[in-house]
């Protein structure tokens, strides 16, 4: 029994990370109908940005204080991720705004490979996995479950709390603020939005910035709880996040988060209980991805529930 609850807890933590990435996927798709394949790489770049901040910018004396290192690393990760995302939008995607639809997807593929290789080649020692500092208080939360207890390290608890808080904040921003309204208008009809005095380019850049910021936070937190990062992490988690976004109905913020938790649970529980074990947990996610895309491309929650970013 404990194993089941332990795996559920792991799945929720993984789901929180995936959710942070999935929000960026779903927002960009909602606005410009682009599968930003390179978004997973933004997540990865964010993690390396956080590590770089910790290694080179923060004074060594501060390393023991999580109150400083964690926010500072997250800020560093966010800054790097946002810079990369803005450059990518400006130089790779914007010139293709009116091109045939496969063109931006191929570009996204190219950007993804480029970013992955750039980090691998130019970040010191990035050719193999890099250790990532713990950055948070040790120990964990003890959750009593039937038949024993599950220990959830505090960093994981923090991760879930931060992810959910950011998702709620984003939802409120999109629903309540003036720019949020502009985003929704652009998503519904770009030309009409333009007539209403909205600059679609600004809205699109803002969308990329918001998505990248969340991915940057996600990258740093992922590193802090896995204690290791590598250049492949973006590709894998990017696929998970995309699957989550599709599962929840792409374009929907709430759907992306719910989809992310579902994917997290499928991976951990599938790895535990399905034949083949953890060797095949990726395969189950890809199977889910194919089934959803083929049979329910509008997502599990259907068109009516869809709140476009």
């Amino acid at each position: 029994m404990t194993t089941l609850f332990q795996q559920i807890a792991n799945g929720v933590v993984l789901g929180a990370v995936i959710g942070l990435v999935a929000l960026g996927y779903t927002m960009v798709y909602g606005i410009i109908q682009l599968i930003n394949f390179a978004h997973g790489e933004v997540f990865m770049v964010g993690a390396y940005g956080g590590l770089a901040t910790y290694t080179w910018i923060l004074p060594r004396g501060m390393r023991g204080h999580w109150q400083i290192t964690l926010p500072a690393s997250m800020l560093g990760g966010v800054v790097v991720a946002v810079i990369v995302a803005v450059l990518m939008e400006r130089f790779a995607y914007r010139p293709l705004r009116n091109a045939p639809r496969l063109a931006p997807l191929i570009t996204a593929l190219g950007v993804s490979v480029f970013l992955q290789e750039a980090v691998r080649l130019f970040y010191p020692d990035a050719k193999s996995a890099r250790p990532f500092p713990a950055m948070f208080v040790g120990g964990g939360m003890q959750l009593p479950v039937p038949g024993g207890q599950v220990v959830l390290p505090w960093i994981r608890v923090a991760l879930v709390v931060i992810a959910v808080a950011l998702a709620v904040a984003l939802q409120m921003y999109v629903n309540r603020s003036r720019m949020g309204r502009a985003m929704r208008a652009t998503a519904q009809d770009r030309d009409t939005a333009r007539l209403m005095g909205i600059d679609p380019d600004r809205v699109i850049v803002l969308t990329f910035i918001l998505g990248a910021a969340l991915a940057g936070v996600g990258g740093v937190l992922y590193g802090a709880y896995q204690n290791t990062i590598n250049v492949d992490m973006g590709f894998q988690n990017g696929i998970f996040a995309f699957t989550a976004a599709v599962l929840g109905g792409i374009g929907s913020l709430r759907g992306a988060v719910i989809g992310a938790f579902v994917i997290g649970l499928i991976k951990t529980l599938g790895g535990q209980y399905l034949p083949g074990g953890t060797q095949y947990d990726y395969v189950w996610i890809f199977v889910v991805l194919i089934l959803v895309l083929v049979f329910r491309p509008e997502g599990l929650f259907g068109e009516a529930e869809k709140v476009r970013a």
Partner: protein
Amino acid sequence: MNRITSYLRPGMALPLRLIGSVLVVVGALLPWATFVLNRGAYPAKSTLQYFDLPFAVTGFRLHVLLLGLAALVVTFAPVPGRGRILRGLGWGAVLVSAVNVLFIAYYGGGLGAVTVSEIPAFGGIVGLLGGLAVVAGAHAGGIEEPVHLPTGLPRPAAWAVLLVSYAGLLMMVAWTLTAGGQGGVANPYAGAQFLSFLGFAGGLLAALQGAGVLPWIGRLSEDHRPFSIVVLLGCALALPFTGAGTDYWMTVAANIGIYAATAIGLNVVVGLAGMLDIGYVAFLGIGAFVAANLSGAVAAKVDITLPFPVAAVIAAVVAGMFGSIVGSPTLRVRGDYLAIVTLAFGEIFVRTAQNNIGGLTGGPNAIPGVPPVTIAGTGFNEPITIGGTKLPSGVLYYFMIVLLVGLVMGIFANLKNSRIGRAWIAIREDEDVAKAMGISTGRIKILAFMVGASTAGLSGAVFAHKLGTVSYESFKFLESVTLISAVILGGMGTIPGAVLGASLLFVLPEKLREFSDYRLLLFGLALVLIMRFRPQGLVPDKHRRAELAGEDFEGRPLEESVTEQAHLPPAGAVLPGEARA
């Protein structure tokens, strides 16, 4: 570019062209490096020579000299398309000079290596400036309409022209392969020499294109199609008899051939039917694993040994069956969602192969010891002797792969112009309209996947026997990206494009060993840049060109040809087309 050319006046054309060509010639004769570089003399020991041996320049300086002399001749000769020719020659000189200046500066540790040190060496900089002046002069004089040479030659003359052209092509390929020699520790300057040669060849080809020669040859070979195919095949088979006939280049050429055939198959799915498949390399893998299992490899799970042709056919059929499975979602999914579905299938293949599913793939241990193909007791990996000429080992594989690529090219050229091929193109252009025209889109789309997949499966069978080891590592996502890059670089929907793209993407890493780490970085960048600046690829398909680049069949911008149509001749005038009718 336009902002720069707007400063040029027609009056500057002649002086710029003259000064430029003279500078290029002079640059070729000046020394290029100030000292002997520490890893040996930079290419062919030619860089330290001064005027003492003015006409004995070799290597890249010979290339620069030839380009300069050609530009000088064209400046005064009244040939059609002069601006275009000069532009090509000028860019050639710029590229060769720039590549060599950069490399000498890089290996020599700074700009001092190309300016003044033990001796003054301004050759590279003079050549570079001269080349730029020629380009500027070409633009100042105006770039003419593309030259259109008439093609109504009598058959013997046309055949002779084609023979000479294809022989030239063969020499070009052999030179390109051998340019700079094999990369690696023994020859640190191979990459530089190769890139420099590419610049030279590119400049020459651009000049020929400008003179209207290349399009002319293209039209001639269209008119004499069967003859061209025979000659081209003969040329490909003759490659081992040229300077490129070494063990090493036969291996490289055979690998290129395998990937070229695979890329042609991918081109059916992506280029013709317009469905992006980013997990395509899985079919190559399926074919390779099937063939490995049926050929009596040591670690094979299936304990039967079939002759190669049978195993290859089975591999193609099995891959085709998987192709129809992967293609079946096309009934419901379109566009970018479909691309993600294919990616998911590709990843599932890699994961299951990595986990050695059913003991069929060997997992991390791979399947080693796949025996080479044999015919009449001779292994395809052994060297052979034909008529007193000793051919390198692997040459039989090369021959087989040339025939395979030829076969695949022939099939697809016919398929493209068949009812099915037109149906694919119709689906690519607009699926709903295609359906309304009575095409059963679902079946035709799945057929595209099946055809593409079985081509890859067939290539996979050759791959397994050629390499002798089949590992899931060879079929990862990045290999799919490489294949997609090959198709897109070459030009979506064109068969020569796929071959050219695959050749470039597999020759370049062989040549540029010192940059092999940057291979994927450059592929990624290339994908972005191609989609941005030349989405139609190097060899554009006619329809694609109109669609993606806004140019008509002749390469003119579409708007121009529309305005031309607006200037209709007055009523009663005889249109050129009608005169012939």
